[in-house]
């Protein structure tokens, strides 16, 4: 049969396949983008001779050195997820010092190349604020130790080799240090902080050995809020517990003086609370009062004076010493679509060193942070450049009223990804364009032929490579025949949507979603998911697809939800619903209305289901399918899985016909003392499955149990939830379940003794593959479960099948309780896994590959054939022919099968596969701090010619053959004629 021949050929073609690419194919269909995330701290370093750089640390735990001229990354390190950077600084002019993991790890990195010089672990007793104090080393010859306060302990660490010179436990003294002051050249270190709610403490320590010289305490009856800001080396400002009084604390000659000032005295019509902003300006501090930022100057004798009052949304930089005794700081305010950068000196508020207006894209939102740096102009005056962090986490460098460069670092924190098709190509291309294209095309192909015939010079080879990489074909803004060009729509943690082109990874549009911005109703909004909202097929020419963004106003499941519908072509918000009911779960239903909008059920915290879109048509559709819609909830904390069904309309104060009550149908309660849910996986709802039958060797058939309502659950012993190795093999096990989510029936249950999580799993078609740790073998393991429908197995009468008299394609119900059998097998696997995905193709014919995100931040493609429970040690000839690989104890890792080849996707978090129109090919998008996109063909591109196929050569061959035929025909005619005359 044709299909058999096809499959056999397919198998033959892929049996020896290696999925690697050649060196010159890098960048042809893949792209890689490096990001750093939202900048937390920045330290400028302007080496006199070398390149100008800035060292930043970010919320993605990245330390990076950026080029100040272009914003490119010189070097970058991504620290672990639980190793957040607290502080960074530069010591000795050549080391970048980072304090991370809540003040317990201090590292020094070489500034030019980013190599780690030393690392010191600092231990302490109790968690506290972490402070890094690197003494300003102007002379550079003396080794002033770095002062680190973390976990309640003050350490002095040598900046040369990271050795701890001395340490002093300060929690014993009952002080929670807030500020460290070490005046230059002084032998005394001052540490100030609070001891309890009412007490202010000041300590003096010997800088040589950490000996406590003096310890003063003073009580303030109003209590402290815990915020403190230093105004000068001996003056501090704190606010009281009620946030209504400012307390000026001066520590002079061992005496602590408090001076109170009511904020209402300073600021007219003050009400509510004031928040002291951490800033390091001399003589000036700032407080945030509902919607405003107020600058207050400390004049002599503890008097406070209001200097300025500006709108909220302004950002202030730290002070920058520009010359002897002079400090400057930057202030950024918003004015419509412009931002106003003002650089002021510390001593005179009205003196503006720089005042620049910069045009700013409104999609970047508010300014969140600003860091300034100065340089000496040719005329010896001071110039300033400002590094600005925006609300969308982008990073910009502003100099002389212009944006020098910008980085879209919001893309380092992608939450969710979906895809959208590009517009259909509209006809009507100008002749000139075609002619030019034709010429280019010909030129390109002539070069290509030269390349194939090895006639090209090195320059031409480079040109060929350039043409291949810069092909305008792949970055066009229209749909292509193979479906390679698409839009990747990503939602970032900043609440911004980006549309990336799959051809070259450029940002097509971006939108800062207003509902996901901080507002009065929404205190700390977060984006949750994106769904495909409308995918037009019938009117693809004149209707745009759109996506649905679901968010939540605050952390916590009962916070009100936020919905927004965005046009995928233009990036304009079509519709948004703010602060609706809470959203715990979103269920995209398999129904669309007449405008091809997909129906969604939003489940709130009270287990009510809300229909969206709220139209009458949607109601009528759902009423038709009412009895067949189920939903389930997984309560991981309680160890319960519940199944629910829609019941009737809600009874609320305001009648709402789009709201439905639900009723519990079934529940699976796991014993809480022996099992805890750690992972659940379902099938992707849009996965295409080609066939329900699996043909085995000897023409046997097994029917796959292909159900969309299959749930894989992995449970471990509650003890074993910690890190690997925290329990012994005897007291740890892993239990896996396959559950039908309509009826709550457990289809399969299996226990792995002596195994532990974390479990990473993927469910596709009728199989699930999961990864866990085997404590007995001290290795990671991967297991596969395949599930087959036994009740269909007796469909073996050929004549019935030939005549179509079978019920294999009639709709089935989960309530028919089909008998199932499972086949399982386990293998050792070398890598630690971060995430697992599986390739998906348009029709589901192509064989599948597992995409494994490894701990090394790479993506490994592993053929599903290696995870086939029918593998045996000695497969028979027929089984071999079928493609069954002899069983080995561990899964092979071929270096060529890394999808990411030499690249790393730092901080890898997710892998998304999207089918292309071409059946053989799947698009793979990997995201983390970096982004990586490529397309892979698990069984090779059997349905298209390769990229480097020379059409021109083919054309020339055909023309040459035709010419040869014509010439020989003429010859033979002539010869025949001569024969006849003879």
């Amino acid at each position: 049969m044709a299909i058999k021949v096809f499959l056999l050929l397919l198998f033959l073609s892929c049996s020896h396949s290696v999925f690697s690419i050649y060196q010159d194919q890098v960048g042809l269909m893949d792209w890689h983008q490096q990001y750093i995330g939202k900048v937390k701290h920045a330290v400028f370093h302007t080496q006199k001779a070398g390149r100008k750089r800035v060292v930043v640390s970010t919320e993605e735990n990245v330390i990076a050195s950026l080029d100040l001229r272009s914003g490119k990354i010189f070097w970058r390190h991504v620290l672990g997820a639980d190793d957040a950077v607290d502080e960074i600084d530069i010591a000795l002019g050549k080391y970048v010092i980072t304090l991370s993991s809540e003040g317990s790890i201090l590292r020094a990195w070489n500034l030019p190349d980013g190599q780690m010089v030393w690392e010191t672990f600092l231990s302490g007793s109790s968690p506290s604020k972490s402070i890094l104090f690197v003494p300003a080393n102007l002379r550079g010859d003396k080794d002033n130790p770095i002062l680190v306060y973390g976990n309640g302990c003050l350490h002095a660490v040598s900046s040369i080799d990271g050795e701890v010179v001395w340490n002093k436990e300060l929690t014993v003294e009952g002080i929670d240090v807030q500020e460290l002051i070490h005046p230059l050249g002084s032998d005394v270190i001052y540490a100030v902080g609070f001891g309890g709610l009412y007490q202010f403490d000041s300590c003096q320590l010997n800088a040589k050995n950490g000996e406590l010289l003096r310890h003063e305490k003073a009580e303030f009856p109003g209590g402290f809020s815990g915020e403190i800001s230093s105004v000068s080396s001996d003056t501090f400002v704190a606010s009281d517990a009620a946030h209504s009084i400012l307390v000026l604390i001066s520590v002079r000659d061992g005496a602590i003086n408090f001076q109170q000032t009511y904020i209402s005295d300073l600021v007219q019509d003050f009400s509510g609370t004031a928040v002291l902003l951490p800033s390091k300006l001399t003589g000036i501090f700032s407080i945030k009062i509902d919607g405003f930022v107020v600058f207050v100057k400390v004049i002599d004798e503890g008097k406070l004076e209001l200097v300025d009052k500006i709108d909220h949304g302004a950002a202030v930089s730290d002070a920058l010493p520009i010359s002897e005794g002079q400090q400057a700081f930057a202030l950024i305010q918003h004015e419509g679509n412009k931002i106003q950068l003002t650089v002021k000196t510390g001593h005179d508020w009205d003196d503006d060193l720089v005042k620049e207006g910069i045009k700013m894209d409104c999609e970047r939102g508010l300014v969140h942070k600003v860091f300034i740096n100065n340089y000496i102009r040719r005329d010896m005056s001071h110039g300033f450049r400002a590094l600005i962090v925006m609300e969308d986490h982008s990073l910009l460098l502003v100099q002389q009223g212009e944006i020098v460069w910008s980085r879209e670092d919001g893309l380092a924190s992608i939450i969710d990804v979906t895809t959208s098709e590009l517009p259909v190509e509209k006809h009507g291309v100008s002749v000139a364009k075609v002619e030019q294209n034709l010429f280019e095309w010909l030129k390109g192909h002539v070069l290509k032929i030269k390349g194939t015939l090895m006639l090209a010079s090195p320059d031409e080879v480079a040109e060929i490579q350039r043409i291949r990489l810069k092909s305008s074909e792949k970055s066009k803004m229209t749909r292509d025949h193979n479906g390679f060009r698409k839009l990747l729509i990503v939602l970032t943690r900043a609440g911004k949507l980006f549309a990336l082109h799959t051809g070259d990874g450029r940002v097509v549009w971006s939108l800062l979603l207003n509902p996901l911005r901080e507002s009065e109703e929404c205190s700390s909004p977060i984006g949750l998911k994106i769904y495909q909202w409308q995918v037009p097929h019938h009117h693809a020419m004149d209707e745009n697809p759109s996506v649905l963004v679901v968010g939540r106003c605050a952390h916590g499941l009962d916070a009100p939800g936020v919905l927004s519908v965005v046009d995928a072509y233009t990036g304009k918000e079509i519709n948004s619903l703010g602060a609706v009911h809470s959203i715990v779960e979103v269920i995209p239903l398999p129904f669309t209305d007449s405008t091809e909008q997909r129906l969604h059920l939003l489940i709130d915290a009270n287990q009510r289901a809300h229909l969206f879109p709220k139209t009458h048509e949607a109601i009528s559709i759902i009423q038709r399918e009412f009895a067949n819609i189920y939903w389930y909830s997984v309560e991981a904390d309680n160890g319960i899985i519940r199944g629910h069904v829609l019941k009737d309309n809600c009874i609320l104060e305001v009648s709402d016909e789009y709201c439905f009550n639900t009723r519990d149908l079934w529940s699976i309660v796991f014993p809480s003392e022996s099992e805890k849910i750690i992972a659940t996986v379902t099938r992707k709802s849009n996965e295409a499955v080609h066939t329900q039958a699996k043909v085995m060797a000897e023409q046997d058939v097994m029917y796959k149990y292909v159900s969309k309502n299959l749930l894989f659950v992995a449970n471990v012993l509650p003890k074993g939830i910690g890190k690997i190795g925290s329990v012994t093999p005897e007291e740890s096990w892993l239990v896996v379940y396959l559950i039908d989510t309509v009826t709550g029936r457990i289809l399969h249950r299996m226990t792995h003794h002596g195994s532990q999580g974390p479990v990473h799993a993927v469910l596709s078609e009728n199989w699930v593959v999961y990864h866990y740790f085997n404590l007995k073998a001290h290795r990671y393991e991967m297991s596969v479960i395949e599930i087959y429908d036994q009740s269909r197995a007796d469909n073996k009468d050929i004549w019935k099948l030939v005549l179509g008299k079978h019920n294999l394609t009639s709709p089935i119900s989960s309530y028919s309780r089909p008998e199932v059998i499972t086949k399982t097998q386990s293998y050792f696997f070398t890598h630690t896994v971060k995430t697992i995905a599986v390739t998906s193709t348009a029709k589901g014919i192509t064989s599948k590959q597992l995409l494994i995100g490894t701990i090394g931040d790479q993506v490994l493609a592993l053929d599903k054939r290696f995870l086939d429970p029918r593998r045996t040690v000695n497969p028979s000839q027929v089984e071999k022919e079928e493609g069954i690989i002899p069983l080995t104890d561990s899964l092979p890792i071929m270096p060529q099968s890394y999808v990411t080849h030499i690249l790393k996707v730092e901080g890898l978090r997710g892998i998304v596969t999207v089918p292309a129109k071409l059946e053989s090919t799947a698009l793979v998008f990997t995201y983390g701090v970096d982004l990586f996109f490529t397309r892979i063909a698990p069984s090779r591109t059997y349905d298209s010619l390769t990229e480097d196929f020379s059409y021109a050569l083919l054309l020339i061959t055909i023309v040459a053959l035709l010419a040869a035929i014509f010439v020989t025909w003429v010859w033979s005619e002539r010869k025949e004629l001569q024969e006849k005359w003879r």
Partner: protein
Amino acid sequence: MEKGKGIGRRWAVDFTDNSNAPSSRDVPDPLGFSRASLDQDDSTLSRQKKDAEANWKAQKAWEVAQAPFKNLLMMGFMMWMAGSTVHLFSIGITFSALLQPISALQGVGKVFDPYKDSKVDLLAPKLLFIALNLGGLALGVWKLNTLGLLPTHASDWVSSLPPAQEVEYSGGGMPLY
């Protein structure tokens, strides 16, 4: 002539009359001419000739009818050589083994046309020819089957059946964070 053409032939003279039968017209034979004796004389001579020819034709027809047998043997040998895995060679041989008998069967009449004779009974050779070719065809089909290219198993009919639709739909999972 111009006119006559339109009207048709008015008369015609037939100069030859070589019919054996007595003249169809009412003209009697010339005196002394006995048509029968001439006939007799001629027939004794030609009967021998014709018998020989018929024999020869029958012999040839049998030869032709048996020809596919050799073919069959050769085909069998080739098939044995080709093995039972699907590749270009075995597919080519199998298809030629299938096509050859079919084309031969289509041209059964033509093959035996030269040996058509009222005296020769061609039915038996024809039947043999057809039988042998059918044998060849069967061999080809058998080969096709050994290659696994015949849809004789249930698997051949269900391998492209799409999965059955499900009546119920269920969604949900862990709460979104």
